[in-house]
């Protein structure tokens, strides 16, 4: 039995997959703590789709894929800002317009160059077959993002909570915003490897949303989200060995399952509390 449970760890590729997934899951969860508070969740999704053509181009030109992804992300964010500035369209319309355009461009590039890149790996992720160089890229991105967030999370919190006040106490608000979106793009690129472009949104939303139901303190929200983001990603990658399943799908399903349980049993904001309170009230009245 123990032998069977330890079996995945005897394979180098499984150990790598589990560790990298945990690292990326933790960083994405850290970002999710902020993202869910601003109504910017869709931004993560948009970025993940928008960087696909960049990744494809990078593969075609034999550049590190992170470079292509980064410039595509920057271009997408820039186009969104430009369209929003020049027209009176709503933000969600602009996001929908731009990210589908970029995604379509990516698909087009792949269909023209079918041999250059495995599009399925970009869309669905393929952590089990991650190359050595990709692994180094993902690790560097994740460690830098995590360090910046761990050191400066209070500054980011102040900016997200009340931007005018943050500015009035002398915080560099614009620089912090740019730093946040740069990290979001970078983490999205890293998460492409683990869960793929389609499911990145779950990684940067679900852990934060789960922790949000459990606490009123931002510090604890971050800690819970990070632990759960890392753990769920590691467990998902590990379990994929036995189920012979796509790790990305497993990770996100696992995160969602825990979110659903939390909705019901969360001590303060859960639905169960409402049921008990109503029953108790009925008991007293009846």
């Amino acid at each position: 039995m123990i032998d069977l449970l330890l079996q995945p760890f005897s394979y180098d590729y499984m150990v790598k997959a589990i560790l990298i997934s945990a690292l990326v899951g933790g960083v994405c969860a850290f970002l999710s703590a902020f993202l869910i508070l601003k109504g910017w969740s869709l931004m993560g999704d948009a970025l993940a789709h928008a960087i696909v053509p960049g990744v494809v181009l990078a593969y075609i030109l034999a550049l590190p894929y992170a470079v292509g992804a980064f410039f595509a992300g920057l271009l997408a964010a820039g186009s969104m800002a430009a369209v929003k500035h020049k027209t009176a369209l709503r933000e969600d319309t602009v996001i929908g317009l731009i990210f589908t355009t970029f995604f379509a461009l990516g698909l087009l590039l792949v269909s023209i160059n079918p041999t250059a890149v495995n599009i399925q790996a970009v869309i669905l992720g393929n952590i089990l077959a991650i190359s050595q160089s990709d692994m180094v890229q993902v690790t560097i991105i994740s460690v830098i993002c995590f360090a910046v967030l761990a050191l400066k999370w209070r500054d980011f919190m102040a900016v997200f909570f009340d931007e005018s006040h943050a500015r009035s106490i002398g915080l560099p608000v614009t620089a912090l915003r740019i730093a946040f979106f740069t990290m979001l793009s970078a983490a999205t690129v890293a998460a492409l490897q683990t869960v793929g472009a389609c499911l990145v949104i779950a990684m940067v939303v679900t852990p934060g949303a789960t922790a949000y139901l459990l606490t009123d303190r931002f510090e604890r929200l971050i800690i819970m989200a990070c632990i759960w983001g890392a753990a769920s990603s590691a467990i998902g990658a590990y379990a994929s060995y036995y189920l012979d399943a796509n790790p990305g799908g497993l990770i996100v399903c696992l995160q969602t399952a825990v979110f659903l349980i939390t909705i019901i049993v969360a001590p303060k904001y859960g639905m169960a509390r409402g049921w008990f309170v109503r029953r108790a009230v009925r008991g007293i009245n009846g």
Partner: protein
Amino acid sequence: MTGQDVIKITDLSVTYSNGHCALDGVNITLHTGTICGLVGVNGAGKSTLFKSIMGFVKPSQGSVKIHGDIAQKALKKNRVAYVPQTEEVDWNFPVLVKDVVMMGRYGHMGFMRIASKADHVAVENALERVGMRAYENRQIGELSGGQKKRVFVARALAQGGDIILLDEPFTGVDIKTEDSLIALFHDLANEGRLILVSTHNLGSVPHFCDEVILINKTVQAYGPVETTFTQENLAKTFGGMLRHHRLIGDDLHDDEDPRGLTVLTDDERPLVLYGEEGGEQIRKLNKKGRKRTT
């Protein structure tokens, strides 16, 4: 009661990138130890003036000096505390009352914003001061409108500047809370701070302000409330934007008394002027109001 000059605004004009000119040729010098009201219609440049004092917008002409420094430098020294409107913030944000007040201390902390003993003491004192100590462990969304305002004022106090800017502090609070906030502002001004309050609430200006700035793109009138907050100046500032009711002598009295009653309001507590010209009783009203609130 004029103290030391703190804010010196010289020939300030602000034009936004879309070509809209929000302020034009503003000249004011504000002093410590005063409560100054900032009154004008929406779009008259009240918030632009605030933003200029905090250095958020670049003047196209002129300058704002705070204790002789440009605004950005003054912010770094935590000179200016800003109390925003309640609606500007997401009250579902997962922070407790004491966390919000602690954010006022960030400018005093190091790179990682780790709170020291002194920071905790400052937060406790600020909460005590506004009577919110008992609520320090509440999530901010659980507070009433007036309590939310107090938390923001506590954050400004914790920050410790001698200039406090308040943006419409009386919207959405009941009269009782308004009176207690006004009493607090008086104490803060007496301790040598400058309190600059933008308000729609014309009726309370004579109650709590020492000075008033009437603004409409440029300063229409500035000076002590008694001499500046007159019907003539208000009419000049607001143009046709005020609701204006005047009950003249014949409607009020059966005798020969020629005095009339004037009620001016834009949307909140109305300003009531009583007298032959409609304005000469303002000094008396002010004194009465002051007695009530201090």
